[in-house]
């Protein structure tokens, strides 16, 4: 059986309304109960933020630093796999410092790969209905954890793209300066697109199987990566050169992984147009389960799961099936809920009460 990653300890200070929280979760199931607005989602967001250095709610660091707090800090110990790893993070509005086992990681994949978790949350409806960047982020979450050099390629790509776009926006445009970024965009961009296409192909069968398990007909679901970018760096560079006039007119770079999307279909048509609310939720959930399965397969370690506000996400039958599927996996679970019926599905879970930014074991 694949070894499961588990959070053994989490300490958070000054993160949103969490002034000072210390949690020792159970290796398996953990239930966080409390009324809305007490900090349940923020707690899961903090865990995922340490693991990915991004907020799954799309929040900026300024929004995450608590009121009247100069600096937010977190410490998280993750066990499972080989050795335990300690992640430490401090950040304020301007700066961020993340270390793993006392050192800044030399490679992104070492950090992200050792802190692999999957989040299910109510805003996941936007995976199907929202903007393309949410779907690209789903792919990137997996790839930074399993492909050495992917995180670095994303960062360099973003930097070169920003610079190129700044030049295209200028009052006078120097084509030599704009073209100076093309080889880098081609090298990193084509590598990003290749990795994303490969991952999408892997996610599709996993998402279909997961959909079947949660009472949705998997064969009706399809996902495909849509891009205008060639996967060959040489052709990519030519495409950039050909698009120069368009780019100049629109004052931005029009081709590249930043403009791509994952097209999700239901019964052969765009899911956001035809899928019902319930189907949309189930498709999003199937994508998250596929994310989990591919992460497990590629990394050889089972990620832990963060399930936010479960009852509002699914109907009763799907919730029961979801828990049955997860229970068979031995993954560590963090579930937040306001719903006693959900609590009843996890009778052996360690229970925590979340109230006014505090978290206490019951």
């Amino acid at each position, binding site marked *: 059986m694949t070894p499961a990653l588990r959070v053994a300890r989490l300490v958070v200070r000054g993160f949103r309304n969490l002034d000072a929280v210390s949690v020792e979760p159970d290796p398996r199931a953990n239930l966080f109960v409390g009324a809305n607005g007490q900090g349940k989602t923020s707690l899961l967001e903090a865990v995922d933020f340490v693991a990915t250095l991004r907020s799954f709610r799309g929040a900026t660091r300024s929004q995450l630093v608590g009121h009247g707090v100069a600096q937010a800090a977190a410490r998280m110990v993750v066990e499972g796999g080989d050795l335990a790893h300690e992640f430490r993070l401090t950040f304020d509005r301007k700066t961020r410092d993340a270390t793993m086992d006392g050192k800044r990681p030399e490679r992104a994949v070492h950090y992200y790969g050792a802190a692999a978790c999957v989040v299910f949350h109510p805003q996941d409806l936007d995976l199907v209905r929202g903007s393309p960047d949410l779907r690209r982020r789903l792919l990137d979450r997996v790839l930074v954890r399993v492909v050495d050099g992917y995180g670095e390629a994303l960062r360099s790509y973003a930097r070169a793209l920003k610079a190129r776009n700044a030049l295209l926006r200028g009052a006078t445009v*120097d084509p030599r300066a704009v073209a*100076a970024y093309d080889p880098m965009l081609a090298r990193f961009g084509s590598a990003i697109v290749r990795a994303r296409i490969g991952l999408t192909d892997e996610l599709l069968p996993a998402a279909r199987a997961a959909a079947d398990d949660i009472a949705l007909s998997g064969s009706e679901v399809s996902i495909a990566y849509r891009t205008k970018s060639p996967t060959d760096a040489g052709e990519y560079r030519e495409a950039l050169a050909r698009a120069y006039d368009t780019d100049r007119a629109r004052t931005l770079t029009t081709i590249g992984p930043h403009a791509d999307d994952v097209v999700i279909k239901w019964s052969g048509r765009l899911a956001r147009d035809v899928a019902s609310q319930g189907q949309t939720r189930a498709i999003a959930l199937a994508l998250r389960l596929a994310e989990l399965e591919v992460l497990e397969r590629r990394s050889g370690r089972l990620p832990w799961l963060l399930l936010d506000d479960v009852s509002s996400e699914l109907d009763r039958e799907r919730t029961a099936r979801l828990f049955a599927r997860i229970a068979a996996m031995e993954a560590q679970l963090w579930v937040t809920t306001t719903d006693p019926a959900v609590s009843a599905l996890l009778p052996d879970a360690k229970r925590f009460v979340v109230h006014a930014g505090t978290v206490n074991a019951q």
Partner: protein
Amino acid sequence: MSDDDPIGAAVKLLARLPGVGEKSARRMAYSLLASGPQFAKALGDAVASLPERVRKCSVCGTYTGRETCNICSDPQRTDDILCVVARPWELDALERAGSFRGRYHVLHTLLDPLSGLGPEQFPLDPLLARVESAHTSEVIVATPPTVEGEATALFLAEALRPLGVKLSRIASGVPHGGDLEFVDPITLGRALEGRRGL
């Protein structure tokens, strides 16, 4: 304010240096106090006289105590090859390697439109003038292998091409004594792209 809190004032100034956080700055300030007035005075004088005693070489732009630096005034070096670097300390590093016998040109900057350094602000003309007036046959661009360094290299290459000089870029790749297994994929990919015949 500095009358009331001279330590705090010193810490604030020290923390503005690159790589120095507030904690290190505080340690430096207390260490200066502990090591006695002579050291602090000597350090202060050395720092204060830097801008007076050091200027940019009128030929290559590196820092020197004279009108032209040692390298530019060395008759043994060849004018054929010009090596373009971004920063004076990168020139120092290349000199320590000891194998280059040509001349240098220090840009003091990189193309970086996000920090307000676009093509119009870029100090291109002094370099073009120098390549044209000297008997340069080859220009080596030794800007760092970062996004800004790569963009600068390509920008310079396009600007220098009409002058008909040979253009080259320093190779980037696997460090000497390095283990291929531990080289990051970007570097390894570039090392493969930039391979040469045996």
